[in-house]
């Protein structure tokens, strides 16, 4: 059987560089051995394969506008596969399947204000869209980025965040849940929702894109509701353990009263209005 006949056969790829970003997260720059571009949309994911260990679904963290043929994955060390990936280094080989899923609705967002709200590792999928919009800055109106993590040492993409802080054409705000006494931190201290009341949202012209852990969604959505942000102007990216990525294995199905969704095909990015009745979504 060749690749055409099996949706389960990964492509070979090479790790071009590894950057440690925080205690549990590393950024991997990867290139397909075919030399071709991955050809993804912001918000899509790939199945990363370590033969002998298995596969894990990982969101693509780089924008398709990034120069060159490589793409980036920010991987948290949290299970068998990701533990092993963390031991890999420049030049090592891995397998890639994908890109899979529905990413962010770039066409819909174009011409509008975009508010990004990222919690913790949620910055990884959002960064694919953030960088896309920064690379096409003129196509978007106001851009706001709200980024929160637990402690200053957990902040990811430090170099880029440093640039965002200094950029005049975006509004970047950050917060940490707590800051140890011996750490210097000039940003806000408090959970991510504490940043929301302070921002102006042009309700008729904005989209809010949120990514973070399930618990964060609940509080952020509540806060956005208080701000009167319409549900259909909110997009979120959901996490599931997709085993196949192609709508067959059943693991990522989420159920609602009216219908059901497969996160690997219908998502991982969803319009909030479309999933708010799905009690299993969060």
């Amino acid at each position, binding site marked *: 059987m060749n690749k055409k006949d099996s949706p389960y056969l990964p492509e070979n790829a090479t790790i071009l560089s590894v950057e440690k970003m925080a205690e549990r997260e590393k950024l991997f720059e990867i290139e397909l051995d075919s030399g071709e571009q991955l050809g993804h949309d912001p918000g899509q994911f790939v199945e990363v394969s370590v*033969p002998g*260990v*298995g596969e*894990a679904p990982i969101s693509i963290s780089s924008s398709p506008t990034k120069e060159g043929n490589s793409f980036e994955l920010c991987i948290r060390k949290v299970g068998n596969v990701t533990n092993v990936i963390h031991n890999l280094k420049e030049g090592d080989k891995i397998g890639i399947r994908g890109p899979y899923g529905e990413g962010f609705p770039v066409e819909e967002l174009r011409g509008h204000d975009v508010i990004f709200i990222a919690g913790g590792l949620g910055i990884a999928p959002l960064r694919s869209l953030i960088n896309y919009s920064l690379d096409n800055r003129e196509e978007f109106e106001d851009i706001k980025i709200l980024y929160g993590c637990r402690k200053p040492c957990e902040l990811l993409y430090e170099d880029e965040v440093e640039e965002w802080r200094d950029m005049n054409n975006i509004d970047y705000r950050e917060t940490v849940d707590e800051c140890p006494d011996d750490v210097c931190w000039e940003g806000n201290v408090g959970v991510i929702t504490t940043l929301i009341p302070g921002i102006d949202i042009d309700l008729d012209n904005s989209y809010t894109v949120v990514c973070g*852990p399930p618990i964060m969604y609940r509080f952020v959505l509540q806060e956005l509701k208080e701000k009167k942000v319409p549900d259909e102007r909110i997009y979120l990216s959901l996490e599931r353990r997709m085993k196949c990525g192609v*709508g067959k294995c*059943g693991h990522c*199905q989420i*159920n609602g009263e009216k219908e059901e969704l497969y996160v690997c095909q219908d998502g991982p990015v969803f319009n909030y209005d479309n999933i708010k009745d799905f009690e*299993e979504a969060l």
Partner: protein
Amino acid sequence: MKVIKKEDLENFVDELIANNEKEVVGVKSKDSKYVFDKLENAEELELDYDVTILPPKKYFMPQRETLVEYETREGIEMEAVNEVVPRIIIGIHPYDLEAIKQMDKVFADSPEDDNYLEKREKSVLIGVNMKQISEWSFAGSMGTATIEDGYDLMLTDLGDRYAVEIGTSKGRELLERESLEMRDAEPEEVEEVENIEENIQNGFEKELDFSPQNLPWLLAENYGDEDFWEENAEDCYSCGTCNIVCPTCYCFDVQDFSDISLEEGERMRQWDGCMLEAFAEVAGGENFREERAERYRHRYMRKGRYLYNRFGDIACVGCGRCSSQCVPDIADPTDIFNKLWSDKDE
């Protein structure tokens, strides 16, 4: 319709076995139950069984099968694998044929899953009308007690002979053997088959109190009735047996198995079950169906609504395997569905 004497069918099966072109499997007895297994000779074949422990799905989607072989000595070498054994499967009841039709749709849905489709394509399905009916079966209510298509050949027991309905050219080709003693059915034999099929409908102890076409909306309406699902799931062991024996359960897990060198191995898919606790768990430990009742509800929703929404079929064929094998006896779909039906006006 053709007619073949029982002894001639036996000779025919023995010839197929001897011929060795395709592996011949059929229903055999195992202790006090029945299983689909490889036939050594035609005498082993038990065509008047009630139900098998596992459905014939295992031949197209094995409990464990290799999807990819890998080797990591220098870089990574990965190759897609499909271990296809062409088979003739003898003695499939109509409800299992219906389940296979449904699974064909699932795996042909884009992107096509050749690991299933090729095994399926290389198989010949010989159905048989039920002579015995399992006490747990309610195929009569699900419209799957008899079937119009989905088989290559279909047998009906007429005492000392079998009526043979030819469903496909694959079935016709199988019968093209000079040695085969077979004749056209007489009009009264055709009528006899019709009568037998009609009578099968009346042989079920268990039944749904309503048409299964109502299941999608009935389940949707009761999705939010948490008390109902909690009450009924209370004794569930979360063992997944109902998933494992179901002819329309196809969820799977994928795992790598390396050999002792740790430099080569296989990526395999194996049956998984939505009733198992970790099914909807993600890497960080979050579980999106943590409660037993949520998992229990999920199985019924999937059978009666989700797969219907996606593929157009009610994905319960009424075989009764889940209920017959459930240790705490809480997996009977007629029990749950009838309760929902009778409660609907309250």
